[in-house]
């Protein structure tokens, strides 16, 4: 019984939140990685693109609920998601046309594109704040819990409860669907294959008749979709605050680089590495150990590697360590 309680504790405080946050990071990192492999620059505006996606989802949800449409147990955002994905994709394509295209055709250094992406970041964050304001917005209007900690305790009779929020399960399910579709697209369809060919060897791809325009279009299509889904899911899980998305950029880069930038599988693995190490390092193990070993043998004081204040800093530390010690990441991504 004690052991089951310890496991329940771990599942509740580490595995469920870790999976959710990991999914959000992985979706973001996939977007960054795809832009990096095809267009060859680090897109600092990706966080704001996610925020833009979340914002359009909220605006469309407002319109939908104005007409009184709802799918109650589920949040209305799910209905709004397809439309907001389309809007985010068109925004991405517009941004590309007016900002990145010129530098791509001029063959500017990739640092210049990076600085342009910072301009896009400023512009988008300004646009978001003008359109929706800087305040906190809750998106989740559906059922809060699938199973709450109290219900779980009553059913199983354990002292530790496991709670599963609806938003968490939606995040995990939608992410799995998105990732499966993405890999199907990249590995099975002709366009996906030509995209991979283009990222692998640009000149050879052009020589075999692959059109650059098409590749760029599909790249932004995928990036916009992923950014919108990731942003909306993050907002759904934690309530939408525009400024948090700027702070998400570095964890996303950390995930992409830890996995090996340019490798989609790496991006997913990286997302989970970052999210779980954040939770595992800042988790206080006192209660967990109290179930496993007799109280007399418990060490004094809190058994925490780093205080929870450093939670976000952990992703930066991992990022810097990986960059210095093994810049290619776990999956041997591309190296600049």
């Amino acid at each position, binding site marked *: 019984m004690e052991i089951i309680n310890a496991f329940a504790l771990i599942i509740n405080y580490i595995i469920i939140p870790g999976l959710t946050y990991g999914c959000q990071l992985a979706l973001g990192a996939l977007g960054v990685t795809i832009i990096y492999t095809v267009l060859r620059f680090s897109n600092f505006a990706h966080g704001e693109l996610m925020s833009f996606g979340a914002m359009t989802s909220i605006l469309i949800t407002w319109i939908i609920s104005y007409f009184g449409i709802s799918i109650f147990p589920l949040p209305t955002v799910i209905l709004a998601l397809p439309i907001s994905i389309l809007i985010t994709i068109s925004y991405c394509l517009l941004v590309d046309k007016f900002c990145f295209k010129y530098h791509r055709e001029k063959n500017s250094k990739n640092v210049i594109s990076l*600085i*342009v992406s910072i301009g*896009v970041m400023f512009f988008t964050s300004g646009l978001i704040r003008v359109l929706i304001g800087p305040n906190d917005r809750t998106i989740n209007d559906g059922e809060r819990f699938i199973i709450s900690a109290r219900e779980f305790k009553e059913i199983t009779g354990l002292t530790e409860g496991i709670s599963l929020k609806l938003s968490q399960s939606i995040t995990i399910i939608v992410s799995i669907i998105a990732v499966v579709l993405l890999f199907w697209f990249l590995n099975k369809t002709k366009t996906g294959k030509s995209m991979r060919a283009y990222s692998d060897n640009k000149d050879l791809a052009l020589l075999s008749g692959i059109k650059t325009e098409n590749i760029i279009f599909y790249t932004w299509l995928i990036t916009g979709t992923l950014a919108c889904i990731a942003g909306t899911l993050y907002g759904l899980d934690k309530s939408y605050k525009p400024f948090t998305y700027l702070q998400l950029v570095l964890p996303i880069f950390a995930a992409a680089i830890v996995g090996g930038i340019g490798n989609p599988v790496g991006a997913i693995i990286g997302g989970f590495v970052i999210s779980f190490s954040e939770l595992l390092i800042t988790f206080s193990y006192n209660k967990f150990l109290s179930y496993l070993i007799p109280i007399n043998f418990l060490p004094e004081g809190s058994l925490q590697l780093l205080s929870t*204040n450093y939670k976000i800093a952990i992703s930066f530390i991992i990022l810097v360590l990986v960059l210095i010690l093994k810049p290619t990441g776990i999956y041997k991504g591309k190296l*600049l």
Partner: protein
Amino acid sequence: MKTDFISEKKYINSYFVCAFLFLLVGLFQSWNVAFSILNLCLISSIMSIGINIQWGNSGIVNFGVMGFAAIGGLCGVLISMPPTLEVWKDGTAIILIILFSFLISGILIKKFWKIFVHNKHLKILLSIIIILFSLYLIKSIFIPSTNFIENTNSAKTGYIGGLNLPIILSWPIAGLFCGVIAFLIGKIALGLRSDYLAIATLGISEIIIYIIKNEEWLARGVKNVNGLPRPVPYEIDLQKNEFLQIISETLNLSVIEFSSLIVKSLYSILFILVLLIIFFLLQKAIKSPWGRMMRAVRDNEISAEAMGINVKKRHLQVFIIGSAIIGISGAMLTTLDGQFTPSSYQPLRYTFLIWIMVIIGGSGNNHGAIIGGFAIWFFWIQAEPIGIFLIELITIFLSDQNEMKLYLLNHAAYMRLLLMGLVLILALRFFPKGIIEEEKRL
């Protein structure tokens, strides 16, 4: 020498435009506003000179401006504030500082192992021992002593305090200290290329901010340090001065306004002095063979290396110099504010805005960096009125009670982000060389 003449004329014109803008603000808004904008413009200019020497002259992408500015500000606190005697008397603080530096150097030791230890298993064993030992040190000495410091008179001090020296001394010391930190960062990170270096320095600067925010024994963390001593007299003392009272009466200004004007202009004079010193030293360096070498490294690393230049060493050198300059400006900023607020350090404001200044001003040219600092900071402050004006212009056909118009006017403050992004994108596209081009040297 015709080209020289043209570029010289252009930057003199730009300085005149800047002066004219300040005159406008002084006449139409108020001289107090004009001087507070000027002071921050000067600090921003110094920061952008720091980035310019790294990016414009040697092509290093340093996104860690925020971290170095914060370290500079921290120096301001640690130099100028009175020491907290209770924690120094029994030596807790000294132990803590030694331990802290030991822990930081412990991370670096790994870098130097290569010289002594060659066995892979021995390396792993040693690193495990070091990690366990430092964990033991943290548990047994570090945490109790930090708790002790943070709990001594926590409402007022609760940190180790400073050295009680004049705050102006903190400016050169901040430069030195940031130089040392930049040496450590550069040693481990400068091997990375462009994009990776940008991300790494951004990450490192975030880590620095996290440490300053959370290690309350160092500088009170998010509780802020207020009331830093000043290098200039206080307004209240000036108001008591009879001579100044007479002058303010003849100038037809209130004494309060006049005294704050004097204080602000004194700051401006100090900052202009620092700016001029840094500027002339750098101009000398850039025109010397050293500057030529740096440009050679920037333009083509491989051929520079072939010519026998040690590219790594040059990069490290310039990284240290630029970061030291940013550190100096960080200390100046804290001096001007009179307080140290770690939570105010945001990458948007301290890293990316400074980068916009360098790009807009014209990278590779120190005049450009100064003008860029002035122009962008001016624009950043004045973007709200400009935004309101633009919204009025766009919605000119709508009535004043129109909800959309009112909504947009309420959010006009955020127009500055939007406009800044637009300016950067347009600048990179239509005048990538900036306001003042890099001088062509024959």
